[in-house]
């Protein structure tokens, strides 16, 4: 790539661009001094946490900033021509023709009431004179290019009739129809499941080469960046703080912020026993509070000096092709970094087999949702009843003080399982026992003593607290209700809980809207632990948080768990986080647990074929890691009518390992195969064959 750099002129050259938004409080500069280039057949990634201005940059390129946003400085050159200051009319001829965009949510990019074929063909007919039939044929060709199965048929369908991953493929096909010189992708896989994401990322990789397109790829996910990008720009608070080739950014980060980010994310395979996460202290300053003549990262930087507070560093080249916005890049040695005292908890003690009686025992648990069929008969109550089998025969055990991680893609039933255990849903069948109590009854029929032993941490920080009451009021409610402490000591106890989640007493009188996402999540944790429960269910507690905040919340959960000896169920879709956090892991697919066992056993062979596919799909934030290339075909079948036999047989890449191509998988429910006493796999393939598999992840 470096060789061609000299010869080719960049497709896109962004220089010192500043973008500001008009708000109630006056103009706010969202982005300043951003410079980068995008070349043919390469991907330039822009990575950063939420609110750092990465999407603003993307929208700025095509001037989609809305009525209140404008470019206030710098230049954007597309194929040598200046874009800043062009009229909307001129830009319109470029957009969709030579510059194309792909957004996060394909359902919003596609018109739900127009067939996909018409939408695709329109892209061609709008920009040039072309017969309809030819446009139609070209669209089919393009759908084939993005590996859309049954392309001609898909042209006749409406967006809701194809799956999310296929929708995103259509959007990408649409973007590529006019063979654009520049493709801007704004979090194109964030809304997709990992296995689907992996397929789309492969596709992007292929297309970049075949179409000779320059791609600007925007994402918050370091793993995705490592997989698809050639060059990366790291954004922080509206500024590009580091820019360089992918290997350099990950292998030898020069800016303290980038170094900090790398320490925040658990890599696949790291555990709480083997490594720690180090959150970046403080928080991102709001756009209106950003310092003018100082380093924007100084307040959170471990290396900051007086100079950083008084002078603004410029993006300067540290090594050839690798720039950072820091005065001290040459002096800072990231490997010699020592964590400040108390930033991260101690390593967890190695898991030991206690042989204690499990605290939670679930046997053959089933939770179905009744679905009204739309026939006339059902209107009079005589129709056939249909059931969504959200949880279908799940059995698991959790020893006291341990963490069971539950992973699976959306719709696999992991949240329903959690809701059934806490009593928000009633099971259709099976047994569940907790501390010796039967917990198949809904929460409204449970004893207060039982209720207080089972609490939950929720996913969405914005809806976890009631916006009408102060934080203090909301934390004291469970204390009063469960009479955890005498009523005159409630306030004291609330403050103690605040301290436990690293918030000070001044938060007592604050309303939820005055808190950041990470702080809200901490308060949610404090509420869950207020009654000193024996079991806490965490339903995706960090998936809505930025990586630096995520690390802090994970650390906090670990620390509290150790302090109280709490048992946890940890539900997440991020396999690296689950691996880091859990002692045991259960992998779910379509309502079934397909593999369960100690965490290290799950992440090493023998694998269930689905686990293997999941692991090979996870984007790992390290370009040096090699993953096996296993991609799942098709989509998750409907839980309303799951496939017979093994529910995974429709997509299983390993069926061929069985004699006669796995006929048995279609007809018979697989047996549990016990690798060890605790590690079992739900598959027809004999263990001996499963053990032959190679590990999915290898470091080069």
């Amino acid at each position, binding site marked *: 790539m470096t060789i061609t750099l000299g010869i080719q002129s960049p497709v896109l050259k962004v220089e010192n661009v500043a973008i500001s938004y008009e708000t109630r409080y006056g103009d706010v500069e969202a982005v300043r001094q951003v410079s980068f280039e995008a070349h043919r057949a390469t991907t330039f990634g822009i990575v950063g946490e939420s609110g750092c201005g990465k999407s603003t940059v993307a929208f700025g390129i095509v001037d989609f900033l809305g009525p209140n946003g404008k470019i206030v400085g710098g230049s954007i050159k597309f194929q040598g021509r200046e874009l800043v200051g062009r009229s909307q009319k001129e830009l319109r001829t470029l957009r969709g023709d030579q510059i194309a965009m792909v957004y996060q949510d394909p359902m919003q990019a596609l018109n739900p009431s127009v067939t996909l074929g018409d939408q695709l063909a329109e892209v061609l007919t709008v920009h040039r004179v072309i017969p309809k039939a030819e446009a139609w044929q070209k669209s089919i060709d393009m759908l084939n290019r993005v590996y859309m199965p049954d392309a001609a048929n898909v042209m006749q369908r409406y967006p809701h009739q194809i799956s999310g991953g296929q929708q995103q493929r259509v959007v990408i096909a649409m973007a590529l129809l006019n063979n654009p010189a520049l493709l801007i992708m704004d979090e194109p896989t964030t809304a997709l499941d990992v296995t689907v994401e992996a397929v789309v990322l492969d596709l992007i990789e292929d297309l970049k080469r075949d179409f000779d397109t320059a791609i600007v790829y925007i994402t918050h996910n370091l793993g995705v960046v490592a997989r698809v990008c050639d060059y990366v720009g790291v954004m922080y608070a509206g500024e590009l703080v580091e820019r360089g080739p992918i290997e350099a950014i990950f292998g030898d980060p020069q800016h303290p912020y980038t170094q900090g980010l790398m320490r925040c994310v658990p890599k696949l395979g790291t555990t709480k026993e083997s490594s720690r996460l180090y959150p970046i202290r403080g928080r991102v300053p709001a756009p209106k509070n950003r310092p003018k003549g100082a380093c924007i990262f100084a307040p959170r930087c471990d290396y900051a000096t007086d100079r950083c507070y008084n002078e603004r560093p410029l993006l300067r080249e540290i090594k050839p092709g690798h720039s950072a916005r820091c005065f001290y890049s040459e002096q800072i040695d990231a490997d010699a970094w020592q964590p400040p005292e108390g930033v991260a908890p101690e390593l967890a003690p190695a898991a030991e087999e206690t042989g204690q009686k499990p605290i939670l025992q679930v046997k053959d648990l089933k939770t179905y949702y009744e679905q009204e069929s739309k026939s006339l008969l059902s209107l009079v109550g005589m129709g056939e009843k249909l059931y969504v089998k959200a949880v279908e025969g799940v059995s698991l055990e959790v020893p006291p003080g341990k963490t069971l991680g539950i992973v699976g893609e959306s719709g696999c039933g992991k949240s329903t399982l959690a809701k059934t255990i806490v009593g928000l849903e009633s099971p259709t069948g099976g047994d569940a026992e907790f501390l010796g109590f039967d917990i198949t009854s809904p929460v409204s029929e449970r004893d*207060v003593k039982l209720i207080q032993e089972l609490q939950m941490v929720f996913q969405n920080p914005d*809806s976890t607290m009631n916006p009408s009451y102060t934080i203090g009021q909301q934390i004291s409610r469970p204390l009063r209700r469960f009479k955890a402490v005498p009523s005159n000591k409630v306030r004291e106890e609330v403050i103690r809980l605040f301290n436990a989640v690293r918030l000070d007493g001044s938060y007592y009188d*604050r309303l939820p809207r005055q808190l950041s996402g990470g702080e809200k999540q901490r308060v949610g944790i404090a509420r869950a632990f207020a009654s000193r429960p024996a079991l806490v269910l965490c339903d995706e507690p960090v998936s809505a948080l930025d990586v630096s905040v995520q690390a802090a919340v994970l650390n906090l959960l670990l620390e509290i768990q150790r302090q109280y000896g709490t048992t946890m169920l940890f539900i997440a879709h991020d396999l690296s986080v689950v691996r880091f956090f859990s002692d045991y892991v259960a992998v779910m697919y379509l309502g079934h647990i397909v593999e369960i066992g100690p965490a290290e056993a799950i992440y090493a062979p023998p694998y269930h074929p689905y686990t293997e596919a999941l692991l090979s799909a996870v984007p790992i934030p390290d370009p040096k890691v090699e993953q096996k290339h296993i991609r799942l075909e098709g989509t998750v079948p409907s839980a309303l009518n799951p496939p017979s036999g093994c529910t995974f047989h429709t997509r299983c890449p390993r069926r061929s390992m069985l004699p006669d191509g796995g006929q048995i998988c279609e007809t018979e429910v697989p047996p549990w195969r016990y690798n060890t006493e605790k590690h079992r796999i739900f598959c027809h393939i004999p263990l001996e064959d499963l053990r032959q598999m190679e590990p999915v992840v290898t470091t080069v």
Partner: protein
Amino acid sequence: MAVSEQAMPKAAARPSRLKRLWEGISIIFASKTAVIGLIIVLFWVFVAIFAPVLTPYSPTEQDFKAQNQGPSGAHLLGTDSLGRDIWSRLIYGARVVLVILPVSESFWLPGGTALWGVFLGLVVGSTLGLMGGYLGGWIDEVVMRLLDAMMAFPVILLYMIIIAAVGASATNVVLAIAIVGTPGIARLVRSLALDIRTRDYIRAAELRGENPWYIMFVEILPNARGPIIIDAMLRVGYAIFAMGTLGFLGLGLPPPSPDWGSMVAKGRQYILSGSPWAALWPSVAIASLVVGLNLFADGLREESLRYQ
């Protein structure tokens, strides 16, 4: 992490109640529409409260030497067919609408007829709406279908049926306003509750084993307050309109008491004989107050949406 929190700039502590109140009020001033509406409404509230000191006449005092007069120095807005001062009748009429509720001849409650009617409607409607929205199931079906049946009646007809059944008095007008307003309020609150019940903090409350009434009134209702308040303001406007209509049809407050609707009805006969004042002024009063409330509510709604 301990370090991180201490190093973090302390976010502003929760502002005092006074400051937060002021912040709330300042939303009004951001919208011209709301300010104009508020001025009109405040004008009527002011004259209603201070009615006894704003006019030398009693609203029922008849002066047969000065019938059907136009505006003059002695009678600010003129007199009606019985020689009563229209200005006095107007502002005493506003009192009944906005400031006092005469329960019997010797006993009255603070807060006008329209306000009490809407308030009662809010209490009943919110309860039914919360039950339908949060509890769901057959309770929801039964409650909502019954309210749908009520909404099938034209509003005016419903008012007339109720008043005809229970008789014309201030308390019965309150009752009628409440009954007619209930289905709409219940529908609004139900739709808000349906949305709010999906939030995680409701799950958290359920996991504390809170009883459903606590969840409905303590966890859900406060978060629905914005739209409910704005809807209630519009409803006060409709209620004033309804009171005017009932008065006009002779189903309002019993005669000598000043009632805007019956003033229009009485004055109507004299419009063509050259004295339109007795009918005009109460019409203007009703219209301005209703429009004022609408402007205020609309402005507030727009501005609060903009804040999000």
